[in-house]
């Protein structure tokens, strides 16, 4: 029956012919990859674990409500939380507006081939790689002192953080606009829509997921930034919440820096607890970015 058929056919040889040494190499390589991955994960777990152990005793409402105090059991980080919110919200809004405008110009209006626009693009990419301390020095020389003389205020800090996150936000906003298929623009143009109508009514709404993720990631970078603000007076002892752009301020990363430098273990615990607060904030921001991206993901 069926055997008759199989005897008539020349049977293929599909058995594994890979040599043993090659298989061992494969295994060794995979093992190596695992080791590196584990190294990274273990480091992270140890870091977070020790911070949690150190800080969880101070992880209570008084930490969030109280202002700094000479007594570690009373010390809190309310001023830093509000300072961070002020600085991040102001710089986030300003940089979002500027980044959106720049990206719309470069993607939708500019002639890609012109020298000027190439120069602008290269400049933005270079600025994205400039160390943040350089922005701090710039802010100290021209904003805190010098021409503007805004002093060590929320306004100065916001301006410097805006400069710092702008390049990254412009690049991500451009990517978001680029991801909108050109067939969508053509569809709108073909109905007699102007360039502006096409951008406002079709391109921007479709780019919202990308724009939102990009700006949230930019904002979370500003939230964790400490280097430029050390130069800009955020390391001071601030015992009140900012009331406006010209107020004194401090921010979470610098409060953490200050407390972890203290000799007393009780103060170090406050620092560790502040790290946990900052981590929770950063993770929530990233989660929001992911949710927005997934919720409004569209098939074209």
């Amino acid at each position, binding site marked *: 029956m069926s055997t008759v058929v199989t005897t008539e056919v020349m049977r293929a040889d599909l058995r594994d012919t890979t040599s043993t040494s090659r298989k061992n190499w494969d295994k060794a390589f995979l093992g190596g990859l695992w080791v590196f991955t584990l190294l990274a994960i273990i480091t992270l777990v140890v870091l977070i674990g020790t911070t949690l152990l150190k800080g969880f005793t101070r992880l209570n409402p008084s930490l969030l409500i109280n202002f700094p105090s000479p007594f570690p059991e009373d010390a809190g980080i309310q001023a830093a939380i509000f300072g961070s919110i002020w600085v991040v919200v102001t710089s986030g809004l300003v940089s979002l507006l500027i980044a959106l405008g720049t990206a719309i110009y470069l993607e939708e209006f500019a002639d890609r081939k012109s020298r000027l626009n190439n120069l602008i693009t290269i400049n933005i990419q270079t600025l994205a790689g400039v160390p943040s301390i350089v922005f701090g020095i710039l802010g100290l020389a021209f904003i805190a002192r010098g021409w503007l003389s805004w002093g060590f205020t929320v306004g100065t800090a916001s301006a410097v953080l805006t400069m710092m996150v702008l390049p990254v936000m412009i690049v991500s906003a451009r990517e978001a606009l680029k991801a909108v298929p050109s067939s*969508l623009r053509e569809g709108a*143009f073909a109905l007699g829509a102007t360039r502006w109508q096409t951008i406002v009514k079709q391109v921007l709404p479709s780019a919202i997921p990308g724009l939102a993720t990009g700006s949230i990631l930019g904002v979370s970078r500003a939230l964790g930034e400490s280097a430029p603000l050390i130069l800009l007076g955020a390391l001071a002892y601030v015992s009140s919440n900012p009331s406006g752009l010209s107020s004194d301020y401090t921010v979470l990363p610098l409060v953490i820096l200050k407390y972890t430098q203290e000799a007393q273990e009780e103060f170090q615990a406050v620092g560790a607890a502040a790290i946990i607060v900052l981590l929770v904030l950063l993770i929530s921001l990233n989660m929001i970015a992911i949710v927005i991206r997934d919720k409004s993901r569209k098939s074209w």
Partner: protein
Amino acid sequence: MVDKMVNATIPEVSSTLPKVGSVLRMNLAEGQSSSSANFANEMIMESVGLQVHYGDFLAVRDVNLTIHKSEITALIGPSGCGKSTIIRCFNRMNDLIPSAKVGGNVFYKGIDLYGPEANSGEVRRRIGMVFQKPNPFPKSIYENVAFGPKVNGKPSKKETDEIVERSLKRAALWEEVKDRLKQSAFSLSGGQQQRLCIARALAVNPDVLLMDEPCSALDPIATARIEDLMAEIKTEYPIIIVTHNMQQAARVSDRTAFFNTEIGANATRPTGVLVEYDTTRKIFSNPSDTRTEQYISGRMG
């Protein structure tokens, strides 16, 4: 025989004449060709010496076409012969490609589309377009059709509702979607999406409809529906269609323009040329040019 048809000879003459002159000439010529009843249809668009460069590269040259009311005009030819480039000149979509330079003229009811009297937005409103791949907006079915009227004026809610219903009925889609107008356009099948795009184009009440390979992404059944729809609306909306499918051109069109490629004297890449333009019947039964005959009989391209 009238095989040296007006369409092939007119360009040289009309390129030196103003629009009115060429219309007159056209009508005279039509008088001679009593063999084709189609030719009595009034001309609505005309291209004269149309050519397109992309940078230094001449993509297509010397295209002289006449588009008539109540007719479907098919542009056929092998890949790279400039069919899509030409159709995009008829509503100035090439404006969006910075390197594209259009030479010659395209007249629409006596006005040069590339002249000072023509605004590109108004041109595109009067001359609608349906694309190769269905490209509905990522919005509801209703919003897709309402977008055109909204950007071209501020119709009231009631007016918009009426336009949406009328356009969807005209595109033979109303019965399938009337209960789910608020749903995403992406919930529709490919063929339905393409009919939605036709409805969207009709919603601004254009005078001419351009279709750039509208069925190439569709299955045969959806294609048949679109073809039926084209035959149904052509009296109201003259259609220019680019198609790779010769059977489709033969089935649906009244006139056919055959394009081919040639390598110019100093060129490295092939340039598209209009080989022959005539009634579809003539092109497919008794073409004047041997290249046309070779192409339609499958010996080329």
